[in-house]
């Protein structure tokens, strides 16, 4: 697919976009917390991907290579702009809540989810990405380690540290466990 893109095939590029756009967009969205910003980041990542295609080694895993490129761009942008200091102000309060639940349950679940969602931005970028890949996107430790470029043990320790920090945030907010 990469070689076809390099040969100028429009269809191959569309396939590449269809394969990775949703994954990269969600990674960016969960990392930065803002829909429009995630759209900009996704576009930047795909432009970088397009100009870096000739560097791809066919012996390597394409998914891991693409997501590593996305991860590097997210961390570079984060360090350049220090976006963690601003608030996540576009949180959708009905995000993922079951319709069958009662109103009180909806309120508690939404509040807790909002706290966790906002708490993500307080984590360091490395810990945040590990938590996103393992806990939100449900990837294996092996895959996350390949994307993040660290051993699996490091991924596990980052995820544990992230969960402890999030638990602390919920605890300080005084919500119902």
């Amino acid at each position, binding site marked *: 697919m990469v070689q076809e893109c390099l040969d100028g095939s429009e269809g191959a590029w*569309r396939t590449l976009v269809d394969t990775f756009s*949703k994954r990269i967009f969600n990674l960016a969205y969960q990392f930065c917390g803002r829909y429009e910003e995630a759209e900009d980041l996704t*576009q930047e990542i795909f432009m970088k991907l397009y100009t870096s295609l000739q560097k791809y080694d066919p012996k390597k895993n394409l998914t891991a290579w693409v997501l590593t490129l996305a991860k590097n761009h997210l961390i570079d942008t984060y360090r350049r702009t220090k976006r963690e200091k601003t608030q996540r102000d576009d949180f959708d309060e009905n*995000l*993922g809540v079951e319709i069958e639940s009662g109103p009180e349950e909806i309120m508690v679940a939404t509040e807790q989810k909002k706290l966790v969602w906002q708490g993500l931005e307080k984590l360091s970028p490395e810990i945040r990405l590990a938590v996103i890949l393992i806990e939100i996107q449900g990837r294996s430790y092996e895959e996350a380690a390949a994307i993040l470029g660290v051993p699996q043990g490091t991924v596990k320790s980052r995820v544990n540290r992230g969960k402890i920090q*999030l638990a602390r945030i919920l*605890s300080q907010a005084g919500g119902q*466990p």
Partner: protein
Amino acid sequence: MKCSRVEKLLPIYLEDELSPQEKRLLEAHLRQCPDCQATLAYLRAIPSLLASIPEREISPSLQAKLYAIPALTPAPTKKGGFSLDWLLRPSFQPVLAAASVFLFVLSFFLFHPDGRFLSRSINEQLHLGYSRLEKIVAKAESLPGYLPALQESLQNSLKSLSQSRPHESDKI
């Protein structure tokens, strides 16, 4: 066991990977520490809270922008393809600097209003140098003709010297 230590061990406790001794100590601490109990309860809730964050769909406008990237971005060069990147390499910079200086000097001769006078002056100097060289060569060529006369004159000089100083000529 201190709360800070318990906090670090709680995720491992939840995965049931603590040693029996550590597990016993931690559970003893939990029985008497409400804060750590609360942290444990939150830790149990966090995976499901994070997992319930749904994936978002990308907008059709973003999809269209992503499809259009090849049309808006310069095409990536293939491996082994022709590239002028080597011109920008640091090792090539001295060559570029020397070429710039050469072209700068050359421009005086090509485009400066007084360039023709400069070139005339250079031509004169070149001709002068050439004629001097010719004279030197001509003198060098006539030198063998002078050698016998020079030899004879030297011999006469030596003879006259030996006659005036007989002792020294014996030594010679």
